[in-house]
């Protein structure tokens, strides 16, 4: 399996702090990779660097063989920000159609994406009038509409009920099965179990990069929540 995303020795400063300080990781193509870590650990920052909107101090981020943020990637990448970034004063369908048009796709493609996130019943509704969970699905629709080869999703299932979460994860799995690379950040461990690989990040450092099974095994527990805590404690001891 080849590497879709490669991060080498990445240093990112935000404000006065070094959020990522010599960070390395690699994401295999055609996989669903979970990015996990405590709040403030640098997940969003890493994702922003991968999609090419984060100013970086040094290091290299390569996506599909191109430098992150370079022109050829802009047709091949999809990004869902942590806070839904859609136009509140447009309807769901109008939002999706605009993002479809940016990729020279049709209104029918856009309606398909709206359907895929379970919003076809609200397609004509203004985003401003949607519920929180619906709004983040509208934001997701605008990213998947272009069928990107690399999909970077920052906590896309926050605020969704279990049924919808299950459907969305089914969708991510199908995209990966079709060859797309999906990088998803999450705080929910039962979602992490559905990933092919997990990246555990803490204070801007990678503390685990493995399959969910291997992560649990190395922590000596069958519970991912517990494994996560064990690994963090272990790293704290090593650092002390």
């Amino acid at each position, binding site marked *: 399996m080849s590497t879709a995303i490669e991060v080498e020795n990445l240093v990112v400063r935000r404000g006065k702090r070094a959020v990522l300080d010599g960070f390395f990781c690699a994401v295999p193509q055609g996989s669903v990779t979970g990015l996990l870590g405590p709040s403030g650990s640098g997940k969003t920052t890493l994702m922003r660097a991968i999609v090419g909107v984060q100013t970086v101090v040094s290091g290299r981020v390569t996506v599909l063989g191109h430098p992150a943020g370079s022109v050829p990637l802009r047709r091949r990448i999809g990004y869902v920000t942590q806070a839904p*970034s859609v136009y509140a004063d447009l309807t769901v369908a109008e939002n999706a159609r605009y993002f479809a048009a940016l990729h020279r796709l049709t209104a029918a493609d856009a309606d398909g994406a709206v359907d895929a996130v379970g919003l076809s019943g609200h397609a004509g509704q203004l985003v401003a009038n949607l519920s929180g969970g619906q709004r983040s699905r509208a934001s997701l629709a605008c990213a998947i509409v272009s069928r990107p080869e690399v999909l970077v999703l920052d906590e896309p299932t926050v605020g969704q009920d279990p049924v919808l979460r299950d459907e969305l994860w089914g969708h991510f799995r199908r995209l990966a099965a079709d060859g797309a690379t999906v990088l998803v950040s999450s705080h929910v461990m039962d979602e992490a179990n559905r990933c092919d690989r997990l990246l555990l990040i803490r204070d801007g450092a990678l503390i685990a990069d493995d399959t969910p099974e291997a992560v649990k095994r190395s922590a000596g527990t069958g519970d991912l929540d517990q494994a996560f805590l064990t690994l963090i404690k272990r790293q704290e001891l090593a650092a002390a």
Partner: protein
Amino acid sequence: MILLSTVRRILTQLRHDPRTIAMIIVVPTLLISLLSFMYEGQPAVFDRIALTMLGVFPFVVMFLITSIAMLRERTTGTLERLFTTPVGKLDLLFGYGIAFGLAAAVQAAVAAGFAHWALGMDTAGSIGLVVLIAVANAVLGVALGLLASAFARTEFQAVQFMPVVAAPQLLLCGLFVPREEMAGWLQAISDVLPLSYSVEALTEVGVHTDPTGIMWRDLAVVVAAVVVALVLGAATLRRRTA
């Protein structure tokens, strides 16, 4: 193609906001009606002030609307997301310029038409030229609004830029004190403010039957100011942010 989609998207956003449309179309017309009541019986004074205001209102309204719309793109994260798509900076800047420029053309035509036919505002030159200069002014407001939005973090701050950018131009454009009678340093400031040129152009249309060289030169200065503001605006738009 991307530019066209962006223009359509911005106009659709506007269409969903009838109050803003009403503000754009009705407010200048109402204010000019107010002027006509204030200067009842002094048609020459009304002509001069109404003509100037036809240049000023579109500038102010478009400046405000654009700076807030662009700021929203920044604060809601849509700008960050757009920069991961094939959208170029110029698609975005010209998208706003064209979409709001169209809105401004409607605004200027309604206000100038109303002033001319309903309120009897008299100009020696053609009312079409008045509309043309008013539209150029509105586009100037759009361009400066795009630029100003880079320096505001909140909508509250963006609104504060309005008096900062508009008030000095309005005071020094020659409406209150003729530019020739100002102190030298005030004149020098007035000389670098684009609104001075649009007001002079409008005044030319007011007193000359045919378009004059000064009018065309002034219009060219305004267009040049638009280009400079757009280029500076593009420079402040960064794909990567901290």
